Structures are given as C-alpha cells and as structure tokens.
C-alpha cells in the first residue's frame, strides 16, 4: 500500500525530540556541562571559535554540546549567533610579537633568541592508546610556566638581512569585513586572509598538503610557529586613547618559501602567513601554505595548481556555505525531478523509434 508523506509539523517535532534524546545519550550517565567541554575538549572549542569566527569559549562549548560534537554544525551555530550582535568597533592590530608565548618553535634555526618552547603539544607523543586514561584517576601534572623574555620574529631576522620580502606596510585604511561584504575577485590579501582564517581546517589542510606534493611549487619551511596570549586593544574615538579589553589565545605561523626573483626584485624568501584563534597549529600552518600558494600571480609564478586559484580556494573554503549547499540536496526536489523524468522518457521514446 502506498502512503504519501504528509504533514511536516508532527514529523519535525518527533525528529527534534529524538535528536534531543540522542544528544543526551544514556540517562544513567551524568550529563556533560559546557564548562567540562570548555575545559577538557579545549581544542574542539578552539576550532569552533576559529571557524565560527567568534572568540567566546563558553558559547563555543555550548554549541559543541548542542551539536552533539559535530564541529561544523557547532561553528554554524556560533556564526548564526554572532550575526545577531551589533558590531561597534575594530580593535587595533594585535601585536603577536608581544605574545605571552606558551609554545614557540622554529624549524629553520636550531636555536635562536628566546629559545624553542615545545609547550603543550602532541608532537613527539607516541600515538599509543592510553588505557590508564580510561581507568581514570590521573592527576594532571603541574602546568609549566609560560616563557618570558623577548622573542624576535624569525622572519624579521631574515628581513633585516634582506633575504625576506617585507609585507606591505599598513596603509591605515579600515579593515575590510568579509562577513559584511561579498568577496571580490581579485581578492585583496587582507580579505583573503580573513577568508582563510574562518575557512574549514580540513579543506585548507588538503589544499596546503597538495602544494607540498607537487600541485603548486611550494618549498616551505616553518620559520616560526607560536601560540600564546595576546592583548586586544581598542581605541574608541570618543576616548581618544587606546584601552586593553582583554587577552585572547591565538596561534600564528610564518612559513618561509623561495622566490626565484624577477627583473625588479632579487631572489629572496617570501612568507605565507597563518593566524587562527585559540590553539590551532594545523590550521595556522595550512593557512600559511595556502596564503603563499595564492600569491603565485603576484609573484609572476605559473598558477597551475588548485591551491593557487583564488576563486577555487576562497569560494570553497567556507564549511558553513559548503555544508549548506551539499546538504540542501536532502530537501524535496520532486518538481525538478519530475521534469527530468518527463524529459528522459521523451528522449528515449525518440531513441527507440530510430533504433
């Protein structure tokens, strides 16, 4: 017997109830709190803040809980919330040179002023499942002190020697805002970096990886990767001076790449730049690789690989946009499909007549 699917309202209500039940899981277990997620799933929180482009650990944790751990869904929740807030100012550029560093490594120099700081990292852990963790009762060791003292940027040391191209100085123009205006092509670097900063980590990882495997001409080195707290400073026009409004954790990656030189410029290193909110090394590194790949046309390099095509990369890096369009395929399409059915039947009828 054929039963037409009717009446969305009851179905939607039932689905939401079912979803809520699934989210809660086994009721005999204690429910998670957003505070626990914020504290113990910190890297998930950081990723959601970066892709949701909203620095709020508590809201990101809530989004993760509500999304049942689906981090793209969580970023979506955060972005949708963020759009309800009024924008009142832009902060001064954060000074990552003055970062209170928790982690700082350079792959280009064995040692350098300020030293290498491994910090809290999975690097060099052997990926063996820790069954003791499942058995619980492990007390965390005392946290190490954040490194103090000046840490000059590695790229600056190279730039001083003339071996590294300097970035264009700040022209004082107000920063463009990707969340309020559509992306123009060609895209100015400031907007490109905004787009990459909120782009999907997995997508950028794949793009960055492709440049290393020969699709694009990358010879990258991590000049420096640093993570720590930076001060956010705001200069309200009515005050006339700058005030500190708090500290945020960011991860910054400066990637060094070769540049063969041209008639105007001698051979030198160029830099790819990545910055992400929270602790997100993979994202910051992938972003720096892609940023550098996207400079190909400006440097007169052949842009033949996917990662070097700004339209391709920037229009596909946004996971909230991407999931929307891919997942819209779940919506009813019976009207379009009916017309396809009629069309193919009509063409087949003619094909069979001729056969």
């Amino acid at each position, binding site marked *: 017997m054929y039963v037409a699917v009717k009446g969305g309202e009851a179905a939607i209500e039932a689905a939401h109830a079912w979803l809520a039940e699934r989210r809660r899981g086994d009721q005999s277990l204690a429910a998670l709190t957003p505070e626990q997620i914020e504290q113990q799933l910190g890297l998930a929180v950081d990723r959601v803040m970066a892709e949701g482009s909203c620095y709020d650990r508590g809201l990101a944790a809530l989004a993760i809980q509500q999304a049942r751990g689906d981090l793209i869904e969580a970023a979506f929740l955060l972005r949708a919330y963020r759009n309800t807030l009024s924008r009142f100012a832009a902060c001064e550029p954060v000074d990552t040179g003055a970062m209170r560093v928790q982690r700082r490594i350079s792959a280009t120099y064995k040692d350098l002023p300020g030293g290498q700081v491994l910090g809290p990292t999975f690097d060099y852990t*052997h990926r063996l499942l820790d069954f003791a963790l499942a058995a619980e009762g492990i007390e965390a060791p005392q946290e190490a002190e954040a490194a103090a003292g000046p840490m000059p940027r590695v790229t600056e040391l190279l730039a001083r020697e003339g071996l590294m191209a300097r970035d264009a100085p700040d022209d004082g123009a107000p920063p463009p805002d990707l969340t309020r205006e559509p992306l123009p092509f060609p895209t100015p670097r400031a907007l490109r970096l905004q787009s990459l900063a909120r782009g999907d980590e997995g997508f950028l990882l794949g793009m960055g990886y492709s440049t290393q495997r020969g699709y694009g001409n990358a010879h990258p080195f991590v000049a420096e990767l640093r993570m720590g707290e930076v001060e956010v400073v705001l200069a309200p026009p009515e005050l006339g001076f700058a005030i500190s409004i708090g500290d945020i954790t960011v991860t910054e990656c400066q990637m060094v790449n070769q540049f*063969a030189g041209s008639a105007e410029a001698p051979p030198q290193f160029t830099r790819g730049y990545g910055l992400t909110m929270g602790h997100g090394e993979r994202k910051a590194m992938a972003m720096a690789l892609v940023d550098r790949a996207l400079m190909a046309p400006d440097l007169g390099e052949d842009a033949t690989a996917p990662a070097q095509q700004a339209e391709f990369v920037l229009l596909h890096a946004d996971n909230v946009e991407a999931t929307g369009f891919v997942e819209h395929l779940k919506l009813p399409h019976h009207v379009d499909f009916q017309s396809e059915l009629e069309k193919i039947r009509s063409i087949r009828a003619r094909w069979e007549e001729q056969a």
Partner: protein
Amino acid sequence: MNAMPPLNHRDAAYNFAYLDEATKRMIRRAILKALAIPGHQIPFGAREMPLPYGWGTGGIQVTAAILGPRDVLKVIDQGADDTTNAVSIRAFFARVAGIATTTRTAEATIIQTRHRIPERPLTEGQVMVFQVPMPEPLFRLEPRLAETRRLHALGDYSLAQVKLYEDIARQGEAGTSYNHPVMVAGRYLMSPSPIPGFDNPKLHNSPAIMLFGAGREKKIYAVPPYTTVESLDFDDHPFRPMRAPHACSACGSTTSYLDEIIADDQGGRIYVCSDTDHCAENQGR
C-alpha cells in the same frame, strides 16, 4: 671500539619492534626487491605507526623490519642525536624492541636518519635508513604518479635535465640546495631524500647499505653497497656540494656541514657542526 651500550627493557605488550611478523616480512620483501633494482621505487603496504605520517614512519617501518635483538641503533635528525624527533624515535625503539641504542656513528649497526648522512665514513655492515618525505624525484615537475612511472620506465629524465638547465641559465647554478636528484647505477633517477647537496657524494660507492622508506607515499628504494650514485649535472656545470664557509665554533672543523644559529637579537650568528657525534668526537668528548 667502545663497550657495547646497555640493552633497554622491552615493553612486552608489543611484538618485537612493534610491527607484526607478517608485516615485517612484507617490508623485507620490498627491501630485497629495492636492493636488486637500485634506485627503483618499490610500492609497499605502509601501516599507520604511532606517530604521524611524514615524521619518519617510512624509516621506522624499514628499521622495524630489519632490526634484530643484537642491533645497535642510532637515530639522528638534521645530523643531531639530541633533536626532539630523534630522541622520540630512539625512545620508541628502546621501548618496543629493547635494543641497544647509541649516539656514536662508529658503534651503530643501523642508523636511522632524517636529512643528514654522518660525517664519519660508514663501514661495511652498517645500514643507513632514510626517512623520505617525497620519494619521487620528479614530483615538482610532474605531480601525476602514473606519468612519472612511465617516465622512469622509459628512462626519460629530460624534465629534470631541462629544469637544471633553466636554473643554471637564470641564476648561474642549480636551484636545488637539498634533495638534489641523483642517478643510481646509471639507470634510475632517485631522490636522495632531503639531505643537503653536501651529503650527496657520501652516497657514491658507499660500503654501507642505504635504505629509503617513504611511509606516507608507500615506497621503498635502496642503494646497495659500492654502487655508483651521481648527482645530476652537466659536463660544463659540474655538481658543487656547498657548505657555510666557516669553521665550527665548537670543534673548529672546516670540513663538516654546519648549522647556523642566531646568537642574539641583533641577528649575530655562529656556526656549529650539524653532526653532533662528529663534533663531540673532534672535541675529544
């Protein structure tokens, strides 16, 4: 020769050297094939290892496959025994194989390396295991693997030769400072893994076995002992190995490969041997 380094205690929860016996056998077959066809890349079923692909899993799998209980393992990264990755890999094998480890090139039977060949000449019976990120020497010129396979079969290395010509025409010298491609036994073009060009001549006619493992790209290749290994060049532009024109600030060596270290905020620099064992030996330990 010094006394044998002490054996480590093996974690009995794991099979000897971590990999199961069937996997080790599969890798050994690939190694034998690689030795039989010098410089040719042999595909193998690389496994997930407990560290990320690209951090030396190829080298670790090769080491695990050839390691015996009486072997003495040295692990270097950038020539140094004390760098984080080298320390980590050495600790891994000490734990899962319980073998003796050393920092001394002369004592080691197996040397796993990333980016350097030790300064001290290797001897018969020693095995160098290279961690290889990109086994395909043509990958920057032709990223499609199916196409590079065809070019290797035809011995068509004109792409690499033209690239070298273009570099010389544009900047007066070869563009590659590390990972400069080599011809092995006059047949296959091979990536020497990202060793500095300075180390390329050490591959030529070496008495040691050279094994190259690329885990992420799932390839093994090899240079058997006493095999010709020539860096790609032109008769009128011979290959030139380069090093920083300084003496080591620690041991005074003027022949070893040097690391540049930024010594102060003003960008002052000092130079020291990248091969930490060689440097310590020069300083009389």
